[in-house]
């Protein structure tokens, strides 16, 4: 059943972020300090979830935040919210780091992949335990087990869909579909619009 859950984010927060972003784009460092306060927690959160390693996560989070400063003028409010823009960038950079490290150790990659198999339950546990956003947790529960595993492995662990397929011993097409169906269900449950 589709169930639209009210978005818990303070509705007044986003216009403020957009104002801040405008000032940041014009080189206002004070505004960037406020933006930092608003986004650094989720940025580090998602980078850490993907990379695990504390030192590397801080390094990547720092790079992401500096990139936000550097490219602030490229942000366009008609293409989505500030937090969406920043977190998409943060996740992309975390995943880039995982892949660049793993590309250099391609041979160990498969072994490492299989070794960390049991962790997905643990990831789900951690995410669920630490969720400040009740509705994300609630909406995650509306997914089928396969959808939830696939989305979690791809997003919180930074795996490609091919790796997810290998890990769950499923055909590629199945994983592709699960990722899409799972996200669509989350989108509807969370009432996300772009």
């Amino acid at each position, binding site marked *: 059943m589709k169930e639209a859950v009210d978005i818990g984010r303070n509705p007044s927060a986003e216009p403020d972020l957009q104002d801040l972003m405008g000032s940041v*784009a014009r080189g206002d460092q004070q505004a960037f300090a406020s933006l930092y*306060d608003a986004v650094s927690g989720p940025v580090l959160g998602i980078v850490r979830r993907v990379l695990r390693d504390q030192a590397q996560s801080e390094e990547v989070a720092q790079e992401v935040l500096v990139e936000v400063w550097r490219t602030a003028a490229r942000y366009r409010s*008609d293409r989505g919210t500030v937090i*969406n823009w920043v977190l998409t960038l943060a996740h992309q950079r975390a995943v880039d780091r995982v892949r660049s490290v793993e590309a250099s150790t391609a041979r160990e990659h498969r072994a490492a992949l299989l070794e960390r198999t049991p962790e997905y339950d643990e990831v789900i546990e951690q995410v669920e335990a630490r969720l400040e*956003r009740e509705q994300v947790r609630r909406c995650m529960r509306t997914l089928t087990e396969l959808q939830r595993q696939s989305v979690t492995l791809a997003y919180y662990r930074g795996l490609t869909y091919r790796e997810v397929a290998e890990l769950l011993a499923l055909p590629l097409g199945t994983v592709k579909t699960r990722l899409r169906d799972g996200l669509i269900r989350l989108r509807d449950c*969370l009432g996300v619009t772009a």
Partner: protein
Amino acid sequence: MTTVDLHTLTGAYALHALSDEEREAFERHAADCAACAQEAAELSATAARLGLAVHEAPRPALKVEVMNRIGSVRQEAPRTDPATRTPRSGARTRRLSRWALAACLAAAAGLGGTAVWQHDRAQDAQEQARRAEQRTDELASVLAAPDARSRTAKLADGAIGTVVVSESRDEAVFIASGMQRPPGGKVYQLWFDDRGTMRSAGLMDPGRTTEAVLMDGPVDGATGMGVTVEPAGGSAEPTSDPVAVVEFPA
């Protein structure tokens, strides 16, 4: 990959779960498929909500570091629409946009939606390639300058470093061969030696052990150059002993 296959990649795309080749194929497809672009944008926004759910307070020092760093980072200009950047003739612009609109409508027929790309990676990649090309040209013109002078020095671990300076261009190129990879999370940073004061001249690519780098900034009377190992992103001043020091040729 067929069009149907590409369309079902919206989820994997939003989760950054595609290889570079697949992502590029999807982006090319989505450029002409408004419905795919719309779905990808919505699913990206959904993925960001998963990110929002995992908050981790950074240590306070991180803010100090980031604030320090942005003080020396130049901000990029807004990306302007190429069609409006150089308005040559009104008629041409109008004709182009009408054609583009027709293509959009054809792709979106029956489904609706607008193409929305926040992170235009294809364009970023082009931009990067263009900049890299520009740097290569500049580098070549230093090496080929009539007054180019060079000096070669043995570095640690059998590596060889050569520095080429052109006084007329006021630029220098550092060529390293057989350098050890920097330790994880570290980079080699280049410095101009302004009579004992080190001035940053940019970073080397941590993934390469043999590389020619156009040093950032003018030589400006520097007497030599040095290389140190620094944390990723570089430092404002050297934080370790140099792994290489080369005097500029007189």
